């Protein structure tokens, strides 16, 4: 049997690009319907997201959040687990960060506080993933059901804590006290300003460095360690993993702990880096967006960083549209939905035509090469 292979770059680059083009085309139709010239809309979005340091500061700020939640989904996915509890794990991670900053902020130097808050974010997020993980591993409760229920529990728990415990006496809004300034993660414009590079103020902070480090760490963990090997074996073929003597329960728990930890890191960016206080529903759907990010990024850290950038662009650029044209802010959701629809749900739609086209072109060029020879 003759077997020709479609090279990886077709799957990794060409097909995702084709999907995004289709999504853009569909978005163009939506804009036409709204009486907006699609080309104008694109340039507005592009300018809003990348036109100045204010714009791309915001874009990268969102990107940072998506990297964390996207990585969280990806690590669990490699173990065959669909962790849709990133929302709750990030929220509880915020509690960890908040407690450290409220308790230690101003009392210890930032350089000591930061590692503690990083650990707290990870531990709290992981702890929130532990119970669903344990239930999946040893009691067979489905992780999708338990993690989504834990999102609601997290939301209720945080609501209670904010109202009854964390809210300073005498204030009306449901949020914790503002952290001591000494515990804030420095903003990028401050850091780069120190080196003489002038930026406009934006929420982009040093968490992005940690996000990139985490992406690299996830790559090494998944593909270059025996634990990653066991996670992938379990995810790809659990009976083969069992045959190999891999403890499935432990592996599931490990993958979920790492996943929850990464989701918890989300709070470093949003809470310690920007809001400087714990607010109600601060995750705001970004945990769920992480699913789309991981899907688009094919559960590979590099893909996730790129997909995060795309979603950051949609977030920031879509916000700009709202200012410029006064369209409903939910246009962001529509745009995201289209990207998810085409690159997630309809992913296979473009796969076969493009593969066929490639093979046709490849065999055509081979034939002509043979004819010349």
């Amino acid at each position, binding site marked *: 049997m003759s*077997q020709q292979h479609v090279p990886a770059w077709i799957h990794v680059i060409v097909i995702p690009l084709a999907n995004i083009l289709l999504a853009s085309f569909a978005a163009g139709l939506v804009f036409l319907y709204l009486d907006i010239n699609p080309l104008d809309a694109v340039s507005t979005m592009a300018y809003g997201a990348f036109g100045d340091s204010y714009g791309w500061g915001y874009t990268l700020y969102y990107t940072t959040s998506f990297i964390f939640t996207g990585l969280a989904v990806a690590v669990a996915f490699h173990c065959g687990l669909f962790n849709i509890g990133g929302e709750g794990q990030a929220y509880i991670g915020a509690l960890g960060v908040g407690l450290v900053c409220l308790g230690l902020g101003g009392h210890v130097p930032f350089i000591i506080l930061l590692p503690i808050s990083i650990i707290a974010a990870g531990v709290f997020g992981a702890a929130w993933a532990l119970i669903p993980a344990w239930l999946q591993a040893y009691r067979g409760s489905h992780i999708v059901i338990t993690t989504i229920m834990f999102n609601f529990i997290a939301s209720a728990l945080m609501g209670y804590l904010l109202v009854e415990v964390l809210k300073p006496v005498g204030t009306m809004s449901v949020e914790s006290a503002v952290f001591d300034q000494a515990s804030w993660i420095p903003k990028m414009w401050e850091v780069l300003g120190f080196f003489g590079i002038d930026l406009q103020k934006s929420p982009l902070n040093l968490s992005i460095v940690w996000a990139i480090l985490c992406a690299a760490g996830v790559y090494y963990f998944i593909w270059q360690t025996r634990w990653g090997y066991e996670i*992938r074996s379990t995810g790809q*073929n659990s009976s*083969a993993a069992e045959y190999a003597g*891999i403890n499935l329960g432990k592996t599931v728990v490990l993958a979920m702990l790492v996943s929850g930890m990464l989701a918890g890191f989300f709070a470093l960016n949003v809470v310690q880096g920007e809001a400087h206080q714990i607010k109600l529903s601060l995750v705001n759907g970004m945990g769920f967006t992480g699913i789309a990010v991981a899907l688009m990024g094919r559960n590979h850290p590099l893909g996730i960083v790129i997909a995060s950038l795309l979603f950051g662009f949609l977030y920031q650029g879509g916000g700009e549209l709202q200012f410029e044209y006064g369209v409903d802010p939910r246009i962001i959701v529509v745009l995201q939905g289209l990207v998810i629809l085409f690159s997630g749900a309809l992913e296979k739609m473009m796969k076969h035509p493009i593969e066929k086209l490639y093979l046709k072109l490849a065999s055509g060029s081979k034939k002509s090469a043979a004819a010349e020879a």
Partner: protein
Amino acid sequence: MTAQTDVAAQMAIELRGIDKRFGAVHANKHIDLQVEKGTIHGIVGENGAGKSTLMSIIYGFYEADEGDILIDGKVTRITDSKIAIASGIGMVHQHFMLIQNMTALENVVLGAERGFLINESMDHARAELVRLAKEYGLDVPLDVPVERLSVGLQQRIEILKALYRGARILILDEPTGVLTPQETEHLFKVLDSLKEQGTTVMLITHKLQEIMAATDNVSVMRRGEMVAHVKTRETSREQLAELMVGRKVLLRVEKGEPNPAEKLLEVEGLTWTASDGVVKLDNVNLNVRAGEIVGIAGVSGNGQSELLDVLSGIKNVQSGTIRLNGHEINQGHQLNPSQVRDIKVGHIPEDRHKMGLINSFNADEAFILGFHRKPEYNGKIFTKRQAINRDCAEKMDKWDVRPQDPNLKTANFSGGNQQKLVIAREMEQDPDVLLVGQPTRGVDIGAIEAIHNRIIQMRDKGKAVLLVSVELEEIMSLADRILVMFDGKIVGEVPASKANEQILGLMMANIVPDEVKALQQEASA
């Protein structure tokens, strides 16, 4: 037999230049085939030769890219299986398409109901089935749920289904894989009487002795091409094997006398019950000595898989004792699969796709499955990717795994090479006890030869080998002693020198022939 006058006008099916590609895979290359009316026509070929694709084209699951199908001399476009059925083609799939909790009658009627009221259809079907049963020897209890019937009877229902729908051309895809030899014999009798009534039968199989026993004509496929059409009585198994593989093949395994030494594996009173309460292993006793191969024969699903799973630590011991290479395993003292590996027990699992390999992994990663925690593959934190890669390349060379590329995805190797990879992985650890399940399932003939020789080499090096296989021929040619399993029990033991298909076949159906009883009494006396 009907007289075969004027051959050209007598074709039930004719294929002209059938060509089919699946994306990059060229599954059928310009296939020509003529099947005479009222004959049994065998199609042989190795796995992946394109037999199933071709049959799926005839039955309308796929449409050919090019070429024509002629039925009774007329060009027919078969775009789905409804048209195939209307044209008189019936198919019995390898995996039965029966609804388990329905009766035989209901299964036959399903999809071929007439009118609004089901009773009318049922009455009609019952009368018709009684007639068919009488005519062809296809007796089946009509009012018992299918799940309570044996595999052989279920297959008869499949045949009845096709005949009830008016099939004049019956295609059987690997029909004997799950049958005992006696059931197979009965099937062939049925096929013969079908033939006498003018039905055309196409028999797809990879078992050459069945082709020789049952067919009139044979067509041989290799790598998507039809390489030969021959009359069965003018050919031989050796010639067919050569045509299938493309080179000379040794069908008999050559091996010397065994030198059994101390018992390395002893099983006493092993019973294992599945979570649904079905007793899968029922008081199993057996032992395997160093330097011998003990074969376990039986129709698949009679507890062989569970036996391997319990012995290799995948399933826990529930009651009974296992003494494995000097270690006792019982209910209170279990070993998990990696501990079993640590006491030098190798396990080649029955199903390499389900257990032995991870298809999405590269060959080198699949090669360390089960041994991935070994110090030579690991640093403190990171795995030694280069060491693993080098080791795999080395072993691929030694075991002749092709293509010799450790970075190729496991799924892209042929079945034989995947199996060689598994066997290399397990045998390279130099185990004292080797558990082997279906070592040549889905493996091409050329690789079978090599695998059989490796297993015998292990025996001659003084290893204890337990071999589970549903291929009687394989068991008889490799094993020194043969145990037969039925319904979770060991029915009996036969020395390989005394075994033949007749005896083993009876034992596989839980009947112990007198000569075996005599042998057993002799042994115990």
